[in-house]
Structure formats: structure tokens, C-alpha cells
């Protein structure tokens, strides 16, 4: 359908009724004469052909995808309630020809930046010759002195860049700011793409929209090619789940098939960077860092950092690791550079910037100061070394000459503080359509574009991450934080484009690669995820057992109910609550553990866990003790088994899955030993045996296997000793033993590890028991012995 769409719309689509560009700025959708730009024709006629209902459903599909995938915006300081991702359903469309020219211009800019940063960490000739003010560099907090004179192992400082660009009044692109440290957003661009494909499924597949996968594949191949040592790896370094772009780090790690690492996962040994894995330390020689340099090494940089790796700079200094981008590359992000780049381009490249940047004046020079003073009405004046997004207001800045926040008049301020200030011209940016109140509305926009150094040189991602202003035309309002929206960017070719995915090309030789290393921290989180999910399930079953008996319990109670109340209380479960707070906490801990290893889960598994957490939260507000609570537990049990099912059906059977499974089995075996010790006693309250069978989810099995009513012998046999019952202690001890024997280091030079020996001992002790000999004392001992396995596991793999 899109291919047959006319290049020139014969008549104006009804969708455009009421849409008109704002005066004085270009519009991405319409030309100055009001006609549709050719690259938009096909999408607009597609949308025009949909009924309002179909259109709403299409847009809703995109939004639904992002919610399901758990894409959200989290800000530092906002522990709770991350906001939904504000995606505008209409992409920003750019013609491929123009994009290619943009790419060539930005590649020149990237080279210019590389030359400058290499000089700032090398000979410092630009400062010496007066092209850059020495004082400005000395006061730049990202000019990292411990890295002066250190040459990057790859030979380059810059490998992955982002540029904020906007279309100015003249119709050309302007660079608003350079992101050279650890630019975020490429993963969000990918997610936006998936969402927009969901919104326009039939349309997208036949469209000439250029795919993103090739860009990422080239970048990843480039990273892998930089590995120094045989067998060493490339990884992604993240500050962790509390960072506001952690979601993106996990997403991109999963997408590229790279390890997601935190500073604590890494150690430096003799100038080499190693990742601590369950198979021991393994070399890492390329690190795509999503962490600001200052936090990366507490030994030589920010001493208070808990996120970094002590000694990392030593590994960088001995060229044991290539950092993407080099530590210290953030020096170029300061706004003041925009004032010097036009001149530096002339000095270093012998020609003006191919893509200009917004006009910027450093107020340390007298002429520049005078200019800023005279034109303050049309400027943002702010800290010269600020690395905030372009034109974003901050404390200590002056917008349009409003001095109210400063306490000095403009002239005095500029004279006194000029060396630390830049003035930037407030530019008006082009508009692009978004969907509002059932129609298209123009909004000012800017785009973050991404550039990667590949083996074939700098490559511009054919797409990007667009930010649209909320309402006003003031470009300083174009910020996600002030409530705007984001949009996908489509680069549309004249010709059909090839389908592309991250999977290898067919002309590459197929090699089954090893499934990757498991960092110890990830193993730890998987182990605890297994335990918490199982613990939550146990708490649900116990709560249900109590709540379902409550309505028929006579006033004054029964011995069984009294015993159960004590048992629940021992486990922190409050019987006065329909849905106990402890259960909600257990689930929150499971979510927290899962969040630390988010790169290892499918979107579906994550969505199902998030759904469980949401449901528990909602139920806590309404569910009351009794039948209501019992049926609520039923709902939660179905949901939690859904999550377990997704994990166990789909997760690759390698080390990570084994730790998850060991955690689950350990928790289940402990809980069962606990339960039997409390309720499967000869002298226990009436109904205790049935309770064990019910909480052990083995009612059907019991009925089938034993033609008699539950007795101590049948219950202990089925729930403790029967190796075929997936609820029995024996089953899970066998499972733990199997999994442990398959983990790395199960035996050391032919001798069993301490963990293997401990598991074997528990297994042997259990197997010689009969239902009669496995009395309460033995059950309590067994429970303790199983619990102690955690320590052995920890000592062998997780420290």
C-alpha cells in the first residue's frame, strides 16, 4: 500500500485541515507554501485512510507496548512511581538524502572534537597557542588531571557521540550541544521504534523507513574488534538501577548481547581489568561506559563514589582497557566549547563548520562581553562550564536579561564573572506534528542523533530521539522534564530498504558462541530472585490456607487455627490484613533483584512480574480477611506461576538459570521442612496433615497415591521423601545437587568443592530416613542444614 501511494497528494488529506505552521519557523510536515513535504505523503495518506477508531487503536498499541515493556522515565530523587514514557505517536520524518548530508557534516564535527580532546589530554597546543583560554580549561570539572598524558588503548578518545540538533529559521540544521561523555538515548530511540512499528504494523513493513539494526551491528562489531587479549570481552558499564537511564542500559545490553556490568563487578589485577564471574575473574578489554567518568574510580577520581572500580585508571593508563568514550572526554560537553568550535574548525580543518552550532559567546573576552551585554534580551547567559542540555535554564543563569535571580546588574555581573559565563542566542526551532485532541498540532522540536565510530568510519544512526515541546514555542521549554513528549525519527529513502535485524548476515559463517559469562553479582541477584519468588508463593499459600478456613471457624477458634495464627505470625504475616504487608515486601524484593539483572529477562517475564507487583499494591487497598482474601491469593498464585512459567520455559539453561533454580529449590525445601515440623506431628492439632498437603499443593497427588486419609506417614512420605513429587524436600535437594554439579568449579582437581560436599551430605542424610525416623527434631536439623548451603554457595561463587 505505501509503495503505491502517490508521491504528490492529488488533494489535501483531511487530516491536514486545521494544521498550519507557526509563523517565522519552518515546519517539518509542510513547506512554506502549505503543501505537504514528499517524505510525509505516504504516512499521512495511510493515517488519512484509517477511521478515527482504527487510528486511536493504532496509537494505543504503541503506548501499550511501552507500558508492557516497562519503559519509563525515572528521575533521581523519585524512588516511587516512575512516569509513563510520553511518546508522541507521529514520527518525525526526514528524507534520506538530507540525512546523509547531515551525517557527513557531523562526521567532520566528530573528527574535530577528537582532535581537540586528544590535544587537551596530550600536548595542549591549542591552549598554548591561545585558541582556547587556559583558565576555562583549568576550571572545567571534566578535564581530569589524572588522565593527562594517558593515550587511549584504541588510539581514539571518541567512539560514540550524540548531538542535539534543531532546524533553525533558515531551514538548516544547527548543533545545539555535543554529548561526548556517555550519551544516553540510543536505547530509547530503539524502544520508540519498536513502539511505532506496533502502531503501524502493516504500513511499516512495506515502507521505505531505514532500519536501525545495521547501525548497532556495526558499532558492536567495532567494539568487539577493539578487544586486545584473546578471549577477553566487551561489556557495558552502568551506574546501576538507581540511575535514571538504567532501563536503557539493560535494554541495550540485551539488544547487543553484551554483559551489563556495575563497578563492583570489576577488579583490576596487574593492569588488567577483570570481571568477577561465577567461573572466576575473566578479562574485559572494552568497556562501553554509561557512567560519568568522575564516578568510575574512587581511588583517583571522586573519592566518595560507591559506583566505581578502584584502580580502573591504572588499567586505562597501562592500556589494558579501551573506554568508550575515553575517561575525560566529557570535557568537550561544556557549553563554552561552542564559542570556540567555529574558529577551531578554521584552524584545524581549514574550513568553517559544515553544520554550524548555536551562536555562543564566552564572556571572558571584552568584545564578546560587550556583544552579550547588548543582546542579552535574546540570550541565555549561564555557567560556561555547564554540561546541561542546550538552552536549559539552571540556577545562576539569566534568561532574556532577567537579573532577578542574581542580585547584581547585568554589567557588573558580566565584568565580575565573565570568565565563567557564556551567552547563547535563543534560537527558534522548527515544528513537527503531534497528535492532540483528535488532530495534528505543530510543536517545536529538536532531535538527539547518534554517531558511532565503526570500522568504516563515523556512521550516523538513521533515526534518532526527538523531543517535542509541551505547548509553548520557547525552545528552552523543550525538555522532557518540563512535560514535553518524545517521538521516533524516520529516515525515509526514495528506494525500498532492506529488512535488517541484529541477527548475523547469511554470508557470515555460523558459529555457536559460548553463552557468555555470568558476573557474580548477577548470579547473586538471580539466586535471590528465585528465593523471593518462591517465598512469595509460599506466603500466598499459607495466607490462603488460613483465610479460606476463617469463615467456618467457630467463635473461640480451633486448635489448628490457633496454631496457624502463631505460624503466620512467626513468618511476619499479619492475619488482620487481607493481603499481608510482608507479602507485598517480599514481592518488592523479588522485583528489586530482577531489576538488577533486567538485561537477562524477556519483556514478557518482566511485564508479568511488574503486573504482580501492581496487583498486590491494588489489592492491599481493598481486600479484607476471609473469603475475599482467599480468592485474592488465588489470583496472585496464578499470576506468580505465570512469571515462573515464563522464566522456566524460556530461559536458556546456563549458569544464570541454574542460580535461579537453586534459589527456588532451596527456599521451597526450607519452607517444606518448616511446615512439616510445625504441622505434621503425631500430637499436632487436628487437620494439620491436610493443611500440609494443601499448602504443599499436593492434594491431587495424595489422593491418587494413598487410598487412605492423610496420616503422618503419608504426608511426610509425599512431602519430604518422595523424589518424584516436585513439592517434596527430596525432589529439591536432588535438583540442587544436579544444578550444583553443573556449575563451574563443582569439583576442584577431581575433588568435590565444599558446596558439592555439603549438598551431598544433606542428600544422603535425607535418603536414609523413613517417615517414622524423620521426626520433628530431624526436620528442624534438616531445615538448618539446607539453610547453611546458602553460605557455601556464597563463599564459592558470589563473593
Amino acid at each position: 500500500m505505501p509503495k503505491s501511494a502517490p508521491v504528490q497528494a492529488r488533494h489535501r488529506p483531511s487530516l491536514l485541515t486545521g494544521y498550519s505552521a507557526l509563523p517565522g519557523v519552518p515546519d517539518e510536515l509542510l513547506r512554506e507554501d502549505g503543501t505537504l513535504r514528499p517524505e510525509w505523503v505516504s504516512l499521512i495518506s495511510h493515517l488519512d485512510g484509517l477511521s478515527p477508531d482504527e487510528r486511536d487503536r493504532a496509537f494505543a498499541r504503541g503506548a501499550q507496548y511501552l507500558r508492557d515493556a516497562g519503559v519509563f522515565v525515572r528521575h533521581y530523587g523519585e524512588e516511587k512511581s516512575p512516569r509513563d514514557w510520553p511518546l508522541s505517536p507521529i514520527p518525525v520524518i526526514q528524507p534520506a538524502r538530507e540525512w546523509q548530508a547531515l551525517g557527513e557534516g557531523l562526521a567532520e564535527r566528530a573528527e574535530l572534537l577528537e582532535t581537540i580532546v586528544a590535544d587537551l589530554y596530550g600536548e595542549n597546543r591549542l591552549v598554548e597557542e591561545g585558541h582556547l583560554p587556559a583558565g576555562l580549561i583549568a576550571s572545567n570539572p571534566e578535564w581530569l588531571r589524572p588522565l593527562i598524558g594517558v593515550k587511549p588503548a584504541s588510539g581514539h578518545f571518541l567512539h560514540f557521540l550524540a548531538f542535539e540538533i534543531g532546524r533553525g529559521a533558515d531551514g538548516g540544521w544547527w548543533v545545539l550541544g555535543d554529548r561526548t561523555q556517555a550519551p544516553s538515548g540510543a536505547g530509547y530511540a530503539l524502544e520508540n521504534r519498536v513502539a511505532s512499528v506496533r502502531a503501524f504494523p502493516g504500513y511499516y513493513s512495506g515502507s521505505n523507513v531505514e532500519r536501525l539494526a545495521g547501525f548497532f551491528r556495526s558499532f558492536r562489531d567495532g567494539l568487539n574488534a577493539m578487544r586486545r587479549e584473546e578471549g577477553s570481552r566487551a561489556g557495558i558499564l552502568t551506574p546501576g538501577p538507581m540511575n535514571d537511564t538504567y532501563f536503557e542500559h539493560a535494554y541495550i545490553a540485551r539488544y547487543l548481547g553484551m554483559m551489563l556490568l556495575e563497578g563492583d563487578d570489576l577488579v583490576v589485577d596487574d593492569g588488567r581489568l577483570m570481571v568477577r564471574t561465577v567461573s572466576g575473574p575473566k578479562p574485559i578489554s572494552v568497556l562501553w561506559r554509561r557512567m560519568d567518568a568522575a564516578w568510575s574510580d574512587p581511588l583517583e577520581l571522586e573519592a566518595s563514589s560507591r559506583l566505581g572500580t578502584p584502580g580502573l585508571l591504572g588499567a586505562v593508563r597501562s592500556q589494558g582497557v579501551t573506554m568508550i568514550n575515553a575517561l575525560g572526554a566529557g570535557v568537550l560537553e561544556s557549553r563554552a566549547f561552542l564559542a570556540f568550535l567555529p574558529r577551531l574548525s578554521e584552524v584545524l580543518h581549514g574550513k568553517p563548520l559544515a553544520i554550524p552550532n548555536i551562536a555562543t559567546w564566552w564572556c571572558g573576552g571584552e568584545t564578546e562581553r560587550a556583544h552579550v551585554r547588548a543582546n542579552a534580551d535574546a540570550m541565555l547567559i549561564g555557567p560556561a562550564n555547564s554540561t546541561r542540555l542546550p538552552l536549559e535554564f539552571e540556577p545562576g543563569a539569566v534568561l532574556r536579561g532577567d537579573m532577578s535571580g542574581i542580585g547584581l546588574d547585568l554589567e557588573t555581573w558580566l565584568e565580575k564573572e565573565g570568565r565563567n559565563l557564556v551567552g547563547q542566542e535563543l534560537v527558534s526551532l522548527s515544528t513537527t506534528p503531534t497528535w492532540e485532541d483528535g488532530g495534528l498540532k505543530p510543536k517545536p522540536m529538536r532531535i538527539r542523533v547518534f554517531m558511532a565510530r565503526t570500522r568504516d568510519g563515523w556512521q550516523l544512526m538513521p533515526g534518532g530521539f526527538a523531543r517535542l515541546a509541551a505547548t509553548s514555542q520557547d525552545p528552552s521549554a523543550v525538555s522532557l522534564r518540563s512535560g514535553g513528549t518524545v517521538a521516533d525519527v524516520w529516515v525515509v529513502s526514495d528506494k525500498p530498504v532492506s529488512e535488517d535485524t541484529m541477527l548475523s548476515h547469511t554470508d557470515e559463517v555460523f558459529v555457536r558462541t559460548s553463552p557468555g559469562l555470568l558476573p557474580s553479582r548477577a548470579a547473586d541477584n538471580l539466586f535471590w530472585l528465585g528465593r523471593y519468588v518462591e517465598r512469595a508463593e509460599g506466603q500466598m499459600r499459607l495466607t490462603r490456607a488460613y483465610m479460606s478456613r476463617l469463615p467456618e471457624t467457630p467463635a473461640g477458634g480451633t486448635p489448628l487455627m490457633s496454631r496457624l495464627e502463631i505460624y503466620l505470625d512467626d513468618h511476619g504475616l499479619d492475619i488482620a490484613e487481607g493481603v499481608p504487608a510482608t507479602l507485598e515486601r517480599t514481592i518488592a524484593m523479588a522485583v528489586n533483584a530482577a531489576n538488577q539483572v533486567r538485561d537477562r529477562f524477556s519483556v514478557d517475564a518482566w511485564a508479568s512480574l511488574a503486573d504482580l507487583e501492581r496487583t498486590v499494591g491494588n489489592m492491599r487497598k481493598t481486600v479484607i480477611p476471609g473469603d475475599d482474601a482467599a480468592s485474592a491469593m488465588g489470583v496472585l498464585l496464578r499470576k506468580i506461576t505465570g512469571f515462573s512459567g515464563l522464566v522456566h520455559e524460556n530461559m536458556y539453561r546456563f549458569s544464570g538459570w541454574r542460580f535461579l533454580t537453586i534459589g527456588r529449590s532451596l527456599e521451597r525445601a526450607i519452607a517444606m521442612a518448616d511446615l512439616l515440623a510445625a504441622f505434621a506431628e503425631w500430637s499436632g492439632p487436628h487437620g494439620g496433615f491436610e493443611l500440609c498437603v494443601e499448602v504443599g499443593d499436593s492434594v491431587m497427588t495424595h489422593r491418587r497415591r494413598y487410598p487412605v486419609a492423610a496420616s503422618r506417614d503419608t504426608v511426610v512420605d509425599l512431602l519430604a521423601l518422595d523424589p518424584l513429587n516436585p513439592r517434596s524436600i527430596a525432589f529439591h535437594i536432588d535438583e540442587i545437587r544436579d544444578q550444583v554439579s553443573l556449575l563451574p568449579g563443582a569439583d576442584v582437581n577431581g575433588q568435590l568443592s565444599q558446596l558439592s560436599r555439603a549438598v551431598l551430605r544433606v542428600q544422603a542424610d535425607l535418603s536414609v530416613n523413613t517417615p517414622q525416623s524423620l521426626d520433628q527434631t530431624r526436620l528442624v536439623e534438616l531445615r538448618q542444614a539446607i539453610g547453611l548451603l546458602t553460605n557455601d554457595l556464597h563463599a564459592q561463587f558470589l563473593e
Partner: protein
Amino acid sequence: MLYDIKLGINYIFQAPAAGARQILHAMPLTIPGRQRLIAGSIDIDPAPAMRRERQDFFGNRLTEIAFTEPHSKIVIALKARVEVTGGAEPAAASVDLPDLAGALDAERDLGPRSPLHFLPASPYARPDAAIADWARTLARPDRQCGDIVAGLGLALHREMRFDADATTVDTPAAEAFAARHGVCQDFTHIMIIAMRSLGIPAGYVSGYLRTLPPPGQERLEGADAMHAWVSAWCGPGVGWVEYDPTNAVFAGTDHIVVAYGRDYADVAPVRGAMRTAGGQTSNQSVDVVPVGD
């Protein structure tokens, strides 16, 4: 003067600490025309798995060490013989304060001793309004930089009470100033903040102080541990001068320089954390004895 210097630093950990990695700034520098390191050694017990000597950005000597095995105690022992032949008082008339900014604008050098590193805020020397106000009332603008250094340092010495127990390594300078007490580290950071607020580049000097005074003179404060004082830049002619606000003197032949930095963070005697479950205690002893005494 010829000195024999001994420094001992002990760490005792409640639970054995593994994976420790540290940077030591303890060995005296050789500064032509001022002091010369004749011999020096640092012994570390237990022996670290990795040990490397190098220079940092500011030209200081540092020792980087790493331990792989867990240890419950680490003992660092430095011995050095140093000849001190001069101090760091202003050798000539320095520029007037109003002319300093122009001199700094003309600087194109970003080498280790460039004054430009020492004007911006640094982790332990953040701008503070109270200290800046105090500095402004004392520094008459038509004065020479060298006089301002001496005047401000003397005033600080008079107002502050030396108290070894009142502050810790991490007490902010502003807090120590508000209470008008502290140790050499606090005196030094306060004076650095004051200098920078006036536009005078100022840095942190760590070093040693002669333990016992020459006969008939008073014992200097801060001789029991590593000492700290201020270096300040007084224009291109005079360059750097060093003032010890704890003792209200320009650094002389009783002062032995170990390292220069923007503040304590750059030159801490021992930098780097231990991975340990329990607490730790540490102590430091310093002995600086003139040879032949």
C-alpha cells in the same frame, strides 16, 4: 638543615580487609634550591601484591599498592633523609591584588605549577560566603598579594583555636571556620577558600614539620602527624609563596614538602578504601629530627 624523617601509619581491621588498593603520598620531594631528598624508603607489612611508584599530575611522588589477600593489619613505615636549604617566603615585592587577574588571563600554561589549577573550587575547598566576607574585610584591595597572604594568615591564626579533637578529616572547612577551631588541615582549607575568593590562586601543601624546636624557640603545632600549609600565587614575578596559618609563619627550613595539590583530596597521605565488614582504627606517628643533634 639535614633531617631524618620517620613516618609510621598502622591500620587495624576488626574483620580482615580484602582487595585493598591505596595511593600513598608520603615521600618528600626534591625541589631545586629548597630541599633535596637524599635517601628514602617505604616498607609495607604485609608486602602488597602490587606496588608501583610514579608521579601524579602535580609532579608529586606517589606509591600505589594493592593487596589481594585479606589482612587484619597493615603497617606502613617511611624513612627519609632530606636536606633543606631554603623556604618559600616572598622573595620580592609582589603585584597588587587588582593586577593579578590580568596576569592570570595572560597565562597559557597548564603544566603542573600553573596557577590556573588553583583558582576554581575543589572538593575540600568549596566557596563559602562567610569565609569570603571575612577575607574581604581583611584584604585592602590596594595591597600587594604577598602582604595579603601574610595578613590573612596571621588573622586566621589569631582567630582560630588549634584543637586536635574538634574536627575530623571530613569536617567541612566552613564548619570549622564557623566554630573557629580545628587542625592544620582546617586552617589550610579555610585560608585556601579565602584566597581564592579574592582571586588569589591557592593550594594545599602536605609535608612534615621539625618535631622539636631549636633551643630557645617554641615547639610548632602539628608536628606529631603529617602537617599542611598553604601555597599562594602572587603574580608572575614572585610566583608561589607558602604560608603556614597554623603557626603564622612562611614555610621555612622547619617545613619539608611532600606534595602539592588543590586540596587534601589530591595529596592525602593514604587514599583508597578497604573492603571490610567491620570497622577500622588507624594511627600515625611522625618523627623529624635534625641530623647531628
